[in-house]
C-alpha cells in the first residue's frame, strides 16, 4: 500500500516540474536556513572541545556591586574567586583563569598579536583540550610561576613554522620568553571563555594579591555529574548571599552568578544582564517563536500550492471515492505524498546547509570556526522536516477528503 502511494507520489512529482521545483525550493531553503542557524548555535554553546562536558560546567564571569541609583559591574578578581568560590564543596574541581588579554610577538619584522590567557593548573582538567603535541603545564609549574606556555596550532605554525618542533622551544611574547610545553588544536573564537592563542600560568598574567573584588578573572566549576549541577548552583547562591559587600557605604548588594555556557551567552545578548534571571527560558521561547514564524510563510505557501494542485487531481479523487475509498484513506495517501516530498526537500536542504557551512568555514569570517552538521543538528533537521510536512499537508488533505464524489468526478472545483 505504502509502496504504491510512494509510486503515485513520484509520478505526481514528475508531472508538473515547475510546481515540484517551487515546493522543493521552499522546503529545502527553509531547512537550510534553520540548519545553519542551529549549527551556529550548537557551535557556540553545544558540547564541543574544549567544553565537551558542557552540561557539567558553570562559569563565574561577572561581579556586580549594586545600589538603587548606581551600579558597577566588572570581571571578578583572583582573590575574590580564590576566597569565596574555590572553597565550595559541591564542585568536583574549580579552575580560575584570566578573562583574556593580548601579547605581542615578533617573527622577524612581522607582528603577531596573540590573545593570551592566564590559567591555573586545574584549567586543563576542567576543560578538555585536544593536545596535538606535548602536555599541559602542571599545578606545580603554576605554583612556582614557571615561564611555560601552551600555544595553539596556528600560533605554532606562524611562530615556529610547524607544530612538530614547537614543544621545548621558546616563544617570546611581550619581551618575555616562555618554554612551550604543549600545542593544542585551535579553539573557535565563538568559545569566548576558553579561546586564546597562548595560555600561561596565572601568576604571570595577573596580580594574585590584589584585594579588590574587581579584576580580570573568571572561574570554571565542574560538577561531579550533570545531575549535580542544580545542587552546585544552589550552594553557590547560598554562599554568595553571605559574602560581604565591598564598599558598603556606596553599595547595598553584591550580584554574582554562576551561569551555564548558554546562560552566559544569553546574558551577553540581553540589555539588562545583571538580574538574577539568566534569560535562558526567555531565549528559548523567543527562539521557538521566531523559528515557527519563519516556517509559517513557506508552509502557508505550500498549503496554498497543495490546495490548488489538489483541485487539478479532483477527477482522480472522484474515481477513488466512487470505488469506495474512505476519507481517512485519502487523507493518509495525501499525507504520505506530502511527507515524501518534504523528506526529499529535507535531503536537499541538508546538502545545501552542508555547502553553506563549508563556505563559512572556508571564508574564515569567524576565526577558527569549524561548523559541522553533527547528529544533533541532523535530528533537529529531521524533526523540522516532519513538522513541516504535517503543517503543510493536513489542511489540503482534509479539504480533499471532503470533496463530494460526484462533483469530483465532474472535475469541479468547489
Amino acid at each position, binding site marked *: 500500500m505504502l509502496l504504491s502511494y510512494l509510486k503515485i507520489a513520484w509520478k505526481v512529482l514528475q508531472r508538473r516540474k515547475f510546481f515540484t521545483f517551487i515546493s522543493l525550493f*521552499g522546503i529545502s*531553503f527553509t531547512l537550510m536556513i534553520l540548519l545553519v542557524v542551529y549549527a551556529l548555535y550548537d557551535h557556540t554553546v553545544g558540547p564541543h572541545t574544549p567544553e565537551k562536558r558542557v552540561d557539567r560546567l558553570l562559569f563565574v564571569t561577572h561581579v556586580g556591586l549594586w545600589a538603587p541609583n548606581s551600579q558597577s559591574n566588572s570581571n571578578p578578581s583572583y582573590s575574590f574567586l580564590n576566597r569565596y568560590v574555590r572553597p565550595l564543596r559541591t564542585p568536583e574541581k574549580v579552575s580560575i583563569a584570566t578573562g583574556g588579554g593580548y601579547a*605581542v610577538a615578533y617573527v622577524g619584522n612581522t*607582528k603577531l598579536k596573540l590573545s593570551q590567557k592566564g590559567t591555573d593548573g586545574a584549567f586543563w582538567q576542567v576543560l578538555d583540550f585536544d593536545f596535538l603535541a606535548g602536555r599541559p603545564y602542571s599545578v606545580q609549574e603554576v605554583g612556582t610561576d614557571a615561564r611555560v606556555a601552551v600555544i595553539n596550532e596556528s600560533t605554532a605554525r606562524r611562530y615556529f613554522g610547524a607544530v612538530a618542533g614547537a614543544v621545548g622551544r621558546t616563544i617570546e611574547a611581550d619581551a618575555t620568553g616562555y618554554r612551550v610545553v604543549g600545542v593544542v588544536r585551535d579553539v573557535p573564537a565563538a568559545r569566548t571563555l576558553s579561546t586564546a592563542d597562548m595560555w600561561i600560568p596565572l601568576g604571570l598574567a595577573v596580580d594574585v594579591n590584589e584585594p579588590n573584588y574587581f579584576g580580570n578573572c573568571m572561574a570554571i566549576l565542574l560538577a561531579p555529574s550533570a545531575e549535580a549541577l542544580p545542587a552546585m548552583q544552589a550552594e553557590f547562591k547560598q554562599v554568595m548571599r553571605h559574602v560581604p559587600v565591598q564598599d558598603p557605604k556606596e553599595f547595598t548588594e553584591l550580584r554574582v552568578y554562576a551561569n551555564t555556557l548558554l546562560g552566559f551567552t544569553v546574558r551577553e545578548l540581553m540589555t539588562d544582564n545583571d538580574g538574577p534571571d539568566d534569560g535562558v527560558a526567555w531565549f528559548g521561547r523567543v527562539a521557538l517563536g521566531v523559528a515557527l514564524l519563519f516556517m509559517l510563510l513557506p508552509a502557508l*505557501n505550500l498549503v*496554498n500550492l497543495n490546495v*490548488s494542485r489538489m483541485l487539478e487531481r479532483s477527477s482522480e479523487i472522484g474515481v477513488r471515492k466512487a470505488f469506495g475509498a474512505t476519507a481517512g484513506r485519502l487523507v493518509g495517501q495525501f499525507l504520505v505524498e506530502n511527507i515524501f516530498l518534504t523528506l526529499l526537500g529535507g535531503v536537499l536542504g541538508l546538502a545545501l546547509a552542508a555547502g553553506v557551512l563549508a563556505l563559512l568555514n572556508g571564508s574564515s569570517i569567524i576565526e577558527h570556526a569549524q561548523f559541522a552538521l553533527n547528529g544533533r543538528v541532523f535530528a533537529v533537521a529531521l524533526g523540522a522536516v516532519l513538522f513541516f510536512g504535517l503543517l503543510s499537508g493536513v489542511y489540503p488533505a482534509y479539504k480533499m477528503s471532503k470533496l463530494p464524489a460526484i462533483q469530483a468526478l465532474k472535475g469541479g472545483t468547489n
Partner: protein
Amino acid sequence: MLKHLFTLIWNRKQANALLIVEIFLAFVVLFVVGSLLVYRWQNYRAPLGFAYEQVWAVDLDPGIQPKAERYATQQQIIQRIKSLPGVRAVTRSGSNTPFSNSHNLNNTERPNQRVLRPSGNVYNLDDAAGDVLQLPLEEGRWFDRRDDGAPVVVISRDMKELLFPNETAVGKLVVSNGKKRIVGVTAPFRADGDFADPKQAIFLRNGLQDTTFEHLETLLVRVQPGAGGALEKQISSDIRAIGPGWSSNITPLAEMRDKQLKAVLTPLVALVITCVFLIVNVALGLFGVLWQTINQRRSEIGLRRAIGASAGGISGQILGEILVVATFGLALGLLVAAQFPLLGVLGVRAGVYATAMLLAAGLVYLLTVVCALYPSRLAAGIQPAVALREE
C-alpha cells in the same frame, strides 16, 4: 468596475483567504526588516561627530606594578609618545573609546532638579582631546589651561537638548559627579559607531589634579598621515622600556571601526538574505497559484471572450483581481504595522516606520504585478473556441 472587483473578491474570500494571509505575512516581514534597514541607513548617513582616521587607541596594562606608581609612569609614557616624530597629540581616556562597544553611563542632571532622565555616556578626556578627535563645536569652546582649578565640562548637542531645550547651555551648571560648568557644546557624538543612534554625551576634563590611573588606562594618539607599523613598534617598545612589566595593545580606530561594522553588518546581511528568500518563496507560490487558477477558469474566460471581451480586458481583470487580493492583505498588514509606532516595539523614530510602510506596500504591489503578468497574458491568449470545446 473597481467596486465590482472588490465584491467579486469579497464573495470568494474563503477561497482567497490563504493568499490574503500570505500577502499579509509578506508585508509584515518586509515592514519589520524594512524598518530596521531604514533606521540603520539613516544613522549611517549622519556624521559621527569626530574624526577617527589617524587615531590610535593605546591600551595600557601596568602588569603587577604597585598602584601608587602607575600614574607617574603613565605621565612619562605620555611625554615620551608626544615627543616621537609622527605623533601630533595624545589624550588620556577611559576604556570607552570610540567603536569599542564599552560604555560608561551615568545620570546627568541640572542642579536642584531631580527628574528621571535616560543616563548618558560619560567620557573622560583632557585638553588635547579636541585636537585628537577633532570634535566640531557648535557653541563655546573645548576645555583648556584656563579651566585649571575650576571644574568644567563639554556636552553634546543631544545632552543640551535634553537638559536645556530652549536656552543656551554654555555657562550653566550641571551635576555629574559634582557640580560643573559647561564651556562648550559639540555636535551629536556617536562613539558607538556608524549605525548607532546618537546618545547624550558629557565630556569630563581630566585635569592634572586627577592623578588616578585606574579608569584612564587608555591613550588616544593622533598620528601623522602615513604613520604605520614602524611607529607602532616604536611606541610599544618605548612603553616597555619606561614601565618595566608594562605592556600595551595598539589598535587604530579605523581598524576597530571595520571590526564593528562587520559585527553589525553580518546579522543584517543574514536578515536580508532570509527576507529575500521568504519573499521569493511567496512570489513563486503566488505565481503558481495564479497559473493554476487560470487553467481552472479556462471555460469562464473562453465564454467571456466569445461574448466580446478583448484580450486586454481579460488580462486587466486578472491583474485587477490579484491587486484587490493584495490590497486586502495590505490592509490587514497596515493594521498590524500601525501598532509598532503606537507601542514602540522596535524603539525607532516614527518617521522610520512611515518610510518602511510605504516601501513595503510598494514592494508588495510590485511583487503581485510581476507575478500576475505572465498568468494574465496566458489568460488573454485563451482561444474562446478551444476553451468552449473542452467544456
